[in-house]
């Protein structure tokens, strides 16, 4: 994947400062990527509390291990990777508390009016398809990279992408959902 998020921004400088211990520089980096963090986490969860947990844990653990990131161009990929692992962790913790398959799907409560497009699209997708479509269209990852990020076979990612795309095509034609 082309490390798109770093195009034309002073990530390298901020990263160097952050790796030297400058928390404000790291916060600026996170601010640059917070929408991506939210969108990817939203692919896993509908409850803002879960999204908040995953995003917050990601920020803290990335700060802790920031020195291990060697190439600034991969900062965003690294961030997303850590986030996905936290999402999986949070989901497992929730799973232990309550059997998720007994819970009805709850759309995000009162989404910001500016978020309606994104939220509507996500809500129209089956839960398993959401991270795939968000990573592919929203974050620019390839099928293979998504397979690695989500720990899924490439064929499964391709299949979900294809079916999700078909579902959204129908949605955009006004035939389903929304």
């Amino acid at each position, binding site marked *: 994947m*082309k490390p798109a998020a770093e195009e034309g921004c002073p990530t390298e400088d901020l990263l160097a400062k952050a*790796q*030297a*211990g400058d*928390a*404000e520089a*790291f*916060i600026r980096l*996170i601010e640059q990527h*917070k*929408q991506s963090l*939210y*969108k990817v986490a939203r692919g896993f969860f509908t409850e*803002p509390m879960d*999204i*908040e947990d995953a*995003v*917050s844990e990601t920020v*803290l*653990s*990335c*700060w*802790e*291990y920031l*020195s*291990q*990131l*060697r*190439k600034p161009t*991969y900062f965003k*990929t*690294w961030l997303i*990777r*850590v986030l996905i692992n936290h999402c999986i962790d949070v989901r497992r913790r929730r*799973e232990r508390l309550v059997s*998720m*398959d007994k819970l009805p799907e709850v759309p995000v409560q009162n*989404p*910001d009016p*500016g978020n309606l*497009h*994104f939220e509507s699209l996500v809500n129209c997708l089956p839960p398993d398809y959401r991270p795939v*479509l968000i990573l592919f*269209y*929203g974050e*620019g990852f*390839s*099928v*293979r*990279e998504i397979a*690695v*990020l989500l720990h899924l*076979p490439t*064929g*499964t990612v*391709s*299949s979900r*992408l*294809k079916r999700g*795309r078909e579902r959204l095509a129908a949605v955009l034609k006004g035939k389903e959902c929304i």
Partner: protein
Amino acid sequence: MDLDRELTALFKEDISLPEPVQAGLERSYDKLRHRGNAKAPRRSGKTVRVLLLAAVLASLFSITAFAAYLSRMNVQLNQGERQIYRWDDHDTASNPLLVLHFDVPEEGNLYYFQPGWLPLPPDGTGNLDSSGIYSAWSNLKGRASRTAFEEGLDEDAVLERLAADAGLSQEELEQWYWLCENVPGGSGDIPYQIRIYSPADLYGLSFLVGQTGGAVEILSEETDEQWTCLTATADYSSLSNMGMDRVNYVFRFQQEEGYLLSVTGTEDPETLNKIADGLKVLKTGATAAFSGDLNQQNYTILEPGRG
């Protein structure tokens, strides 16, 4: 506007974070400010691993572009034909495409491996337990836990049954792998990736090697009644967008059992073969059958190297 563009625009649209999420971020920032300036991020301990695979012409991997690509390359494989590999007949002189296809049963035992020898990890410690080489999700236990989670099964019961089937203790489930990669820090380099494909993983699957225009060459090939061993290399030095000069491939296909050991990466072929020599294989009592859409599952692209 075509659908892909429209979806990209919609998914990339700027949004506002819901208040609880933004508030959580602010709390994290406060914690960082308190910790941060007093203590720089730590430089040792557990590695947060980043798994990155090749950046091979991102558009190639979109469904439509990939289908178009396959059509252009005229790849045609006959299901069930006993054929280990062949060169694609399209333009083999300038753009050889190596296609590997394995004739295996649709159902079979599950196989896992343990590395016996690995090159020193980049941090030079040589300590396999702390080097960060192994990813938690790539071992037998991790895979089973995930399956249990995805299928809504009781994880403990699944692991207990798996341990019984495999003849292993619960702890030993963590010591056998289906995939491991050397992923140094966040560099995106993948010097080597080891993977074992059980028959159910391999059924109906074809590997495309060198599909991005790299010049592929078979370095050695040995076949006996048990094994087909193949070492190949792809030279990408003429391609500016690959970010790597060469990827090497070692394949060892166990014909009778129907599993495949694949060791690929930017390490030299001798090193990859040495890794393959040291692999120990576990045949578990657990079995799995191919499940999925063959049309979607039919091709996989092997390009480890740089993310």
